[in-house]
């Protein structure tokens, strides 16, 4: 059968149990001569993407996949779409194996079998700053270790287990760098963390704080994958503003997004704030996992417009405390 070319498979938002079932099903189809390679969890570049639709961001991720990628969706309901196969939850090893085998056999006809594994080119990851940020977010979410090689600058190290960034340069220096520095950065995944002697004298910063600052200060309004100016989203939780750098306007945006799902265009209309400022905030929240991209949150009925007198009182209090 197909022993030479591995088929790359992505697993997105699978529960621990479903991942185990998936692994057993995969072992069974490999016994039948099908060569597959599973990408790190949440890496969406696979030829085949297995995705659990129960997570809030699954639909957004599904929509952001390329048309050529085959999607195997695990869902409580039947779903239809181009290059999309739906499997009803809860999944069982036998049925999972049968579906995987069928898809893999069909896909081998499309990707060919002549190349050796080393010649298989992975679909390209998102490029530029968006791609760089996406990789860092995955490393944070998967508690991995990596070195970030920056051009003509000291390397940075991410300790995903402790959720820390280790650097020899000051945090402020790194954050004030140009976007191009990060666009050209190379990320090297490590199988284990570096020892303290390898690291030398370093300063430690919370990884979430680093990602927030990087996204807000250097993203220059590039929106994360899957977010458009008209896509609606809300906040899962407020950013930890006392420990992340913020602008007073961010509080206004957060207060709005905490109450209802709205688009970037609606935020700018309602708050009168400039779009780049809103986009930077959205980027920051996305980077630290606080954005609910599949939100159906609507303003509750009791959220009636704030009366003028209360607004005036709030303005005066803000002024008194030096916020206005």
């Amino acid at each position: 059968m197909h022993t030479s070319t591995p088929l790359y498979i992505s697993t997105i938002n699978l529960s621990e149990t479903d991942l185990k079932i998936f692994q057993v099903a995969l072992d069974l189809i490999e016994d039948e001569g099908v060569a597959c390679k599973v990408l790190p969890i949440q890496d969406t570049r696979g030829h085949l993407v297995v995705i659990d639709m129960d997570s809030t961001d699954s639909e957004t991720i599904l929509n952001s996949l390329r048309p050529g990628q085959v999607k195997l969706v695990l869902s409580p309901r039947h779903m239809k779409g181009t290059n999309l196969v739906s499997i009803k939850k809860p999944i069982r090893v036998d049925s999972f194996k049968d579906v995987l085998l069928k898809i893999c056999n069909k896909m081998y006809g499309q990707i060919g079998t002549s190349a050796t594994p080393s010649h298989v080119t992975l679909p390209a990851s998102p490029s530029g700053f968006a791609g760089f940020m996406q990789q860092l977010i995955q490393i944070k979410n998967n508690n991995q270790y990596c070195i970030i090689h920056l051009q003509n600058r000291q390397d940075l190290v991410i300790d995903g287990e402790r959720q820390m960034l280790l650097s020899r340069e000051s945090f402020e220096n790194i954050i004030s760098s140009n976007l191009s520095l990060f666009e050209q950065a190379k990320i090297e995944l490590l199988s284990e963390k570096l020892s303290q002697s390898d690291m030398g004298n370093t300063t430690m910063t919370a990884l979430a704080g680093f990602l927030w600052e990087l996204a807000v200060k250097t993203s220059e309004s590039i929106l994360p994958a899957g977010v458009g100016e008209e896509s609606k989203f809300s906040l899962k939780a407020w950013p930890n503003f006392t420990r992340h750098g913020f602008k007073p306007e961010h509080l206004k945006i957060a207060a709005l997004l905490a109450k209802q799902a709205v688009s970037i265009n609606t935020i700018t209309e309602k708050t009168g704030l400039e779009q780049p400022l809103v986009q930077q905030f959205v980027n920051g929240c996305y980077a630290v996992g606080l954005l609910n991209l599949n939100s159906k949150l609507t303003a509750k009925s009791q959220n009636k417009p704030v009366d003028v007198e209360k607004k005036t009182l709030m303005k005066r209090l803000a002024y008194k405390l030096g916020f206005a």
Partner: protein
Amino acid sequence: MIENLTKIVFTGPVGAGKTAAISAISDVPPVSTDVACSGDEKKIKKTTTVAMDYSYIKLDDGRVVHLYGTPGQERFNFMWEMLTRNGIGLVLLVNNDNPDPVGQMEFYLDAFDSFIKETGVVIGITRMGISDQAGIMDYQLKLMERDQVVPVFEIDGRSSDDVRILIQALIAMLSV
């Protein structure tokens, strides 16, 4: 019509930093009814507020925003409802050094539930630097579980900047 007696209420368990937080933003030092601690409270701090803290912020139009701190001990909870009358919002401070700080947060959110629904709440977690009982993510996850998207920030109750950011978030919430 907003009555002249407009209040922001500070609550939370013993040792969470309510008195210090009020001091950080008020026009005059708060009037506190502190007494020497007894029993387990003595292990946390030397004195505690048994009735309430009080101070105020005078606005440029002459109006006054009153700042009330509730007594930390749960045995004084009969006063909580009274103190929240005419309140415009709640500042909940939780001491991360507590054996179950996330549970403490839930307790106060439940106790002030109807007031929070009418107004709004901001949560400040104190003593995070000296205790790793819970991380900010633990509080965020509990709030997500409760379907409450409210500000929860790590703060130093003695830092006027931190307390001001909390109040700033409360103002933002009450203005949309």
